[in-house]
């Protein structure tokens, strides 16, 4: 027999498998190693995934714009590109100090977020950024199309989308869902172009300027509704609230008013 082994690792491993100390040791060892492996992979791969998502979002914006009738011609007139503007949500105008390049840093500062009270917080976000990057298309000196990123709580998690509005700031030109975690086959169908195809032409407000947009239960019956998805009532409700929040006074409302008055 060898003398007493002073290496603590070997001493633990030499314990009988059934002993409590070894059971606990093995549990911590395995979970520690697995946690290290999972975190390592996540941290290492995150930049690549982020780049993928950004590329996908760009592709969706391109597809969204391409799907709007008459937009191809307009795009060519304006040099084939949308202009990017960072806006100040509360003021409804272009942000003075923040640009696209510094937006990420600005949003890292909690001071640039506004907490939402329960009554205002239709989309279930808790807080909203003060600055948002939007995309604009100008025809002469008036705005002919805006692409507005919106987000809100769905059934399975946050839904991120981009809503395109025509020059009157009331008619929806299209919607593209960029990110969601709804149930595949039910709420997950919001990412299908067949569902998104019911958005163009929908009007947000009635003549009295009240927001009327909603996702219908079943088939759309008025000009303010889009078709609902069977089995995805909560997802539809989430989309309704998200659109109403972002098009309302706490969201892009001030901006939309400014554009309608021709001040933007």
């Amino acid at each position, binding site marked *: 027999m060898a003398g007493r082994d002073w290496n603590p690792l070997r001493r633990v491993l030499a314990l009988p498998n*059934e002993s409590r100390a070894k*059971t606990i040791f093995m*549990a911590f060892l395995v979970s520690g190693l697995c946690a290290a492996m999972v975190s390592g*992979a996540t941290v290492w*791969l995150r930049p690549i*995934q982020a780049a993928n998502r950004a590329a996908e979002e760009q592709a969706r914006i391109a597809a969204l714009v391409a799907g709007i009738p008459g937009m191809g011609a307009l795009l060519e007139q304006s040099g084939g590109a949308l202009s990017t503007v960072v806006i100040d949500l509360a003021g409804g105008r272009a942000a003075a100090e923040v640009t696209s390049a510094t937006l990420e840093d600005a949003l890292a500062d909690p001071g640039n977020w506004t907490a939402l009270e329960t009554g205002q917080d239709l989309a279930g976000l808790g807080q909203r950024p003060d600055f948002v990057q939007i995309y604009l298309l100008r025809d002469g000196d008036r705005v002919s199309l805006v692409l507005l990123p919106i987000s809100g709580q769905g059934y399975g998690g946050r839904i991120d989308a981009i809503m395109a509005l025509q020059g009157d700031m009331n008619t929806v030109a299209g919607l593209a869902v960029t990110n969601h975690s709804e149930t*595949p086959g039910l709420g997950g169908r919001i990412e299908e172009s067949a569902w998104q195809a019911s958005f163009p032409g929908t009007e947000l407000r009635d003549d009295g300027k009240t927001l009327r947009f909603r996702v219908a239960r079943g088939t759309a019956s008025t000009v303010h509704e889009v078709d609902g998805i069977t089995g995805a009532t909560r997802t539809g409700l989430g989309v309704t609230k998200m659109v109403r929040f972002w098009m309302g006074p706490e969201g892009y409302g001030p901006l939309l008013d400014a554009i309608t008055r021709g001040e933007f």
Partner: protein
Amino acid sequence: MPARFNVWTTLTDPLIRQNPVTLQILGICSALAVTTSLATALTMSVSLTVVLTLAAGVISLIRRHIPDTIRLIVQIVIVASLVIVIDQVLQAWFAEISKALSVYVGLITTNCLVLGRTEAYARHHAPLPAMLDAFGNGLGYSLVLMVIGGLRELFGKGALFGVQVLPLADQGGWFTPLNLMLLAPSAFFLLGFLVWTVRALLPDQAEAREHTPPLAREPAE
């Protein structure tokens, strides 16, 4: 360790003779869900084979030190971590296919095939044979997925790996796609036919009858 370890039979037995899907009917949930096209079936097969082989290797390495009381949870934690890593890799480099597979990569964790092999084989064998056995089982699973995926894509879309093989009727050809092939029930039918074929060719795989039918009696006078 078994008395004699045969590399070749360990690797090839699970292909048909001991196929985990057609003989043991393990892991069919994902086999049915991801076989609408060959590309997703192939990605799923590769992911499962990699996870299964690595899990078998890791569990076999520490097999003498896994306390019996927590052995299942230790195995599941190892399998689940590997699955998360694979899922992250897919999201990074195969974003499109990762979208198509949606939740099913994550569900490899609960695939009974993986736990079945680690529990039944890797826990009692040295790393190399355990990994070989796992790899063979992964190949057996892959074979079934590729056969079903190939049939479904061929008859459902007239294509293989996205390349049009049969000219479609609406593009001037003669082939009208069978939409049923793209729906879940067709995978059940195909898997059923596959199991039937294999068991017809290899009768020793057929299970014993659970009931013997009663003898037909002469009708009473």
